[in-house]
């Protein structure tokens, strides 16, 4: 899966992701249509554990209004959600539940790690015996939103970054979508 033509990225806010080999003109425009539909209707799963959940709620309320990005329908069951926003700490008792919820979500699914606790354990990193140091030990995370708790605008910026990431996804042609393995660090035993 070599990288044939190295395109120069004009806008510098695109994270550099090697471009996969994809289909021709016909499939590329089909790609654009599918990605456009997916990125503008990301339905988040109501999965709030700690204070970031309250900021996630005020992002859904009238002032910060997630509805502008098509993400205001916060579904309660993973079957109908395609965006898992981990807002809060994950501890060792909650880790298998989170893994099961992620598995039960319908594809294509995306994950946003909202807040310091979901990224790396946040304030509970040092001498806490029960917190998993970051949700990417359990499930693959697409976008990390730092902050403790991050402002609703920061969450919306993370959402926009995810939408950009989805717009570059290649669905057709010779692309193999294999489920990305979570980065299991040697220090923590799950």
């Amino acid at each position, binding site marked *: 899966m070599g990288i044939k033509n190295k395109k120069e990225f004009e806008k510098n806010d695109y994270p550099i992701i090697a471009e996969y080999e994809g289909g021709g003109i016909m499939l590329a425009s089909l790609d654009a249509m599918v990605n456009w539909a997916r990125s503008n209707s990301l339905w988040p799963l109501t999965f709030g554990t700690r204070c970031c959940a309250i900021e996630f709620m005020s992002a859904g309320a009238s002032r910060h209004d997630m509805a502008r990005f098509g993400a205001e329908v916060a579904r309660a069951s993973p079957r109908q959600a395609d965006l898992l926003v981990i807002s809060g700490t994950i501890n060792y008792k909650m880790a298998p539940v989170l893994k099961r919820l992620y598995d039960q979500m319908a594809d294509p699914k995306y994950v946003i790690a909202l807040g310091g606790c979901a990224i790396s354990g946040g304030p509970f990193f040092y*001498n806490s015996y029960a917190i998993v140091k970051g949700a990417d030990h359990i499930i693959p995370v697409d976008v990390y939103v730092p902050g403790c708790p991050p402002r609703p605008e920061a969450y919306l910026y993370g959402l926009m970054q995810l939408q950009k990431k989805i717009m570059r996804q290649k669905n057709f042609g010779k692309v193999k979508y294999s489920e990305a393995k979570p980065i299991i660090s040697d220090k923590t035993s799950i």
Partner: protein
Amino acid sequence: MTNDELKTVLTERFPAAEIKQGFQYVEMTVKAEDLHEIAVQLKQTDEFYFDYLICLTGVDYPENMEIIYHLESIKHRHVMVLKVRTADRVNPAIDTVSDVWITAKYHEREAYDLLGIHFNNHTDLRRLFLEDGWGFPLRKDYVDEVRIVER
């Protein structure tokens, strides 16, 4: 009634216990075997009427394990601290007071879960927070190099 009135009444009612005036409240340390009987008395006698157990704390001192009960009487509005010690660190066991105050049933489960203090004839002594076989984190000699990142 005020702290020192309470102190005098307590010393005259329970001679066997050692009573001293703590920083804020009267502290009474009782022996483990007559804890339950004193707890029933503290609740039932109209003079004390400690009907509200504020909180139950387990402490791991170097020489013994200690349970501290903060009690308040809603009728008389006075607060008291009841302490009980057990020197046995391998499997410390103290009588339960969950039949006197129902909320103690869950506070005791938390003390059992985090400190390993067993409460005899507690109806449903299970772990509250951690999974079974996790060890007792609040003990001073608890070490867990896999999960804890020391600072």
